[in-house]
């Protein structure tokens, strides 16, 4: 369809076309993702291949000391006069080998089947009776230690490559007759040429220890049977490949029958919460900023006050406002409009609508706050010109305000969408997932995937299912955002204004 055809369509068909385009874009995104993933893996393999080739060619071109550095780390630096640097490499190697012999190899070997000796009664053949075994294997710790050892090994490989690089560059500097940088020079470069290493060392190690390692651990759990029937330390758990995904995505179990409805509600919630907040917030901002409205800043402060209150406070208050004996029901009953309390949180449909409504209460002021600033930036003469041409307020909104606001806030909208898919607070504080239902496994009618994940971890300790759901949420979020985000101008042209 050409753009001319599009403009000739009546407005409702235009909307349909836009919606169709949206879903085509999602389809394309999924396709790109599926096609792109092997590409990324292939690039990764090629990168490793290049690294290996570099290691080989360095070995060929290196002199005896550089070659020695392949086995004894730091040799290339140590014997060329960079004593401290060489000693650091050497001690890293000694420490690593010591760790591996002492316990590391055992840790990594444990990853194979996550423990074999189960605690409990077993038949001892020499004694001929059942014996209680007190110290069984703890699969959870075996997995954690194994991952820890793997990360130590990764760090060691990183160090090793660094050592070879350093040895080779020392060799080349010597050959060209220049003076080798001493330890003090190296330290100085950490404040200049290598300043990024100084800045990033602590943050990156923090993220590795408290984000990446836990995440790798949880991702591995998704491929084990660490559920409520395989609790440590009394029981062992082991690898079961993709069975958890099959259970959750299939429809043969209660878990499978829980996942799809919960996913459906999560998506409905995320879209409604994001877009309703967005559009109503824009309308509110326009009402406040309209010419001729008095007390603009008074209204703005009023709404900002509502969001200045910490979210958990206002959510807990709202929970009580809409409770069965809460003020809203009491008021309506006193007025005689209803005879029995409205089921704000007890009926599934009502509860869902109440949640979305309360979320409007929390979310609209945010959009209002952001959009107010943008609205003031729109040049007045645009509206002036439109008015002279006879445009109605609605047309001006559609042709001037919306495109402008949308352009500026698209990244915000995407973050909001992902944030709402993962919106733990609103659901947990308002309903805690209730009303409960027997159709679902460990979830209530208003549970999102994240709150279900929480319940699976905290209440029933089905860690493996929780981890699987976490991975699925990740896939959904990255599909929705990574594609859009990476196409956005601010990602591509980050240096445009430097």
């Amino acid at each position, binding site marked *: 369809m050409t753009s001319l055809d599009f403009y000739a369509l009546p407005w409702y068909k235009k909307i349909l076309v836009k919606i169709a385009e949206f879903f085509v874009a999602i389809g394309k995104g999924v396709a790109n993702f599926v096609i792109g993933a092997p590409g990324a893996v292939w690039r990764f393999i090629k990168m490793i291949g290049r690294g290996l080739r570099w290691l080989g060619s360095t070995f060929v071109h290196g002199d005896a000391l550089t070659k020695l550095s392949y086995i004894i780390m730091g040799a290339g630096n140590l014997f060329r006069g960079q004593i401290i640097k060489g000693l650091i490499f050497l001690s890293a190697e000694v420490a690593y080998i010591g760790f591996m012999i002492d316990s590391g190899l055992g840790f990594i070997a444990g990853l194979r089947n996550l423990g074999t000796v189960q605690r409990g009664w077993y038949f001892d053949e020499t004694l001929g009776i059942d014996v209680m075994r007190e110290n069984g294997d703890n699969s959870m710790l075996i997995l954690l230690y194994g991952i820890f050892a793997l990360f130590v090994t990764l760090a060691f490989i990183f160090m090793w490559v660094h050592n070879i690089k350093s040895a080779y560059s020392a060799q080349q500097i010597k050959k060209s007759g220049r003076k080798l940088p001493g330890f003090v020079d190296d330290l100085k470069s950490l404040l200049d040429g290598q300043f990024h290493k100084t*800045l990033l060392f602590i943050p990156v190690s923090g993220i590795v220890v408290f984000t990446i*390692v836990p*995440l790798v651990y949880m991702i591995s759990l998704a491929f084990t049977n660490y559920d409520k029937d395989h609790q440590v330390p009394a029981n062992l758990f082991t690898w079961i490949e993709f069975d958890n995904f099959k259970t959750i995505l299939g429809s043969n179990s209660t878990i499978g029958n829980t996942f799809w409805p919960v996913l459906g509600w999560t998506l409905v919630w995320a879209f409604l919460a994001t877009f309703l907040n967005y559009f109503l917030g824009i309308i509110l901002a326009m009402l406040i900023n309209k010419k001729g409205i008095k007390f603009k800043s008074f209204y703005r402060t*009023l709404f900002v006050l509502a969001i200045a209150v910490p979210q958990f*406070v206002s959510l807990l208050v709202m929970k009580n*406002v809409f409770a069965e004996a809460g003020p809203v029901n009491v008021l309506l009953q006193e007025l005689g409009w209803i005879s029995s309390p409205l089921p704000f949180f007890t009926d599934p449909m009502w509860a869902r609508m109440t949640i979305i409504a309360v979320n409007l209460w929390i979310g609209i002021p945010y959009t209002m*706050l*952001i959009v107010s600033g*943008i609205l003031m930036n729109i040049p007045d003469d645009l509206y002036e010109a439109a008015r002279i041409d006879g445009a109605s307020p609605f047309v001006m909104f559609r042709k001037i305000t919306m495109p402008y606001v949308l352009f500026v806030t698209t990244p915000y909208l995407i973050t909001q969408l992902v944030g709402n898919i993962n919106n733990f607070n609103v659901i947990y504080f308002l309903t805690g997932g209730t009303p409960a239902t027997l159709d679902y496994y460990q979830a209530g009618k208003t549970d999102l995937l994240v709150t279900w994940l929480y319940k699976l971890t905290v209440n029933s300790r089905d860690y493996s299912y929780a981890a699987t759901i976490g991975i699925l949420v990740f896939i959904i979020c990255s599909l929705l955002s990574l594609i859009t985000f990476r196409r956005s101008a601010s990602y591509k*042209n980050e240096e445009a204004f430097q």
Partner: protein
Amino acid sequence: MREIRKHSYSYHRKQRTINIVIQIVLLILGLMWILPLLWIILTSFRAEPGSYTSYFWPKSFTLDNYSKLILVDQQFKFTKWFINTFIVAVVSCIGSTFIVLAVSYALSRLRFKMRKPMMNIALILGMFPGFMSMVAIYYILKGLGLTENPLVCLTLVYICGSGLTYYIAKGFFDTIPKSLDESAYLDGATRSQVFFRITIPLSKPIIVYTVLTTFMAPWVDYIFPSMICGANYDSYTVALGMFKMLEREFIGTYYTQFAAAAVLVSIPIGALFIVMQKYYVGGVTGGAVKG
């Protein structure tokens, strides 16, 4: 001529009616937004106990809810929670600010091989539900022998996690002209000197923003403390403790005190939020305006 004047007259009249309607709508909306807050403030001064009353305006007022909450040593130690949260907030705010500034500056102004991969990894890590890895974090902290002291755990995890929230600060650094750095390099400045002497003094807004957001985070975080703190009321943060006060067995006795606690927490945090909001708006929209 008269035609036009007449037209413009009716146009203005129409505008006036529209404005009055809007004014009324805004007033009603404003009431809807402010009433729940008013209700909680009234409840905090209410003398009659119990969670719900069948009337909006309390029959008699008292300050007992506040004085009991703060002064009387009861099952729930609000003062202790408040101090706990304050300490965690101050320490983690200092640590996090340094980390956020370091990361965002490095990713914005310095050029090195791992820069883009690092940003992509940060993006990917942000897509996982934050709660997912908390169980594992708990075991790592246990392995480090820190779980005896939940507040240390909280501080550590908040600081270490802040490295991933560099996005808004990076957007700010992206807008500082690069020519400033370059002229300093020409004069022989090192990269660290440029960072400390040129960029940081120019970055007051983003430092204020980072300090405020990282200070506020521990006050409003519920989920991670609920994982770490366990059953020991002494080491609770306010969010966790106040959630506890509303549990079924306590709500009847403690609801008015909960309201008082809500007011006491909301005043400082709300004030900080109001200071922060203009930076927040700039941060959210800034990245896109320049795109």
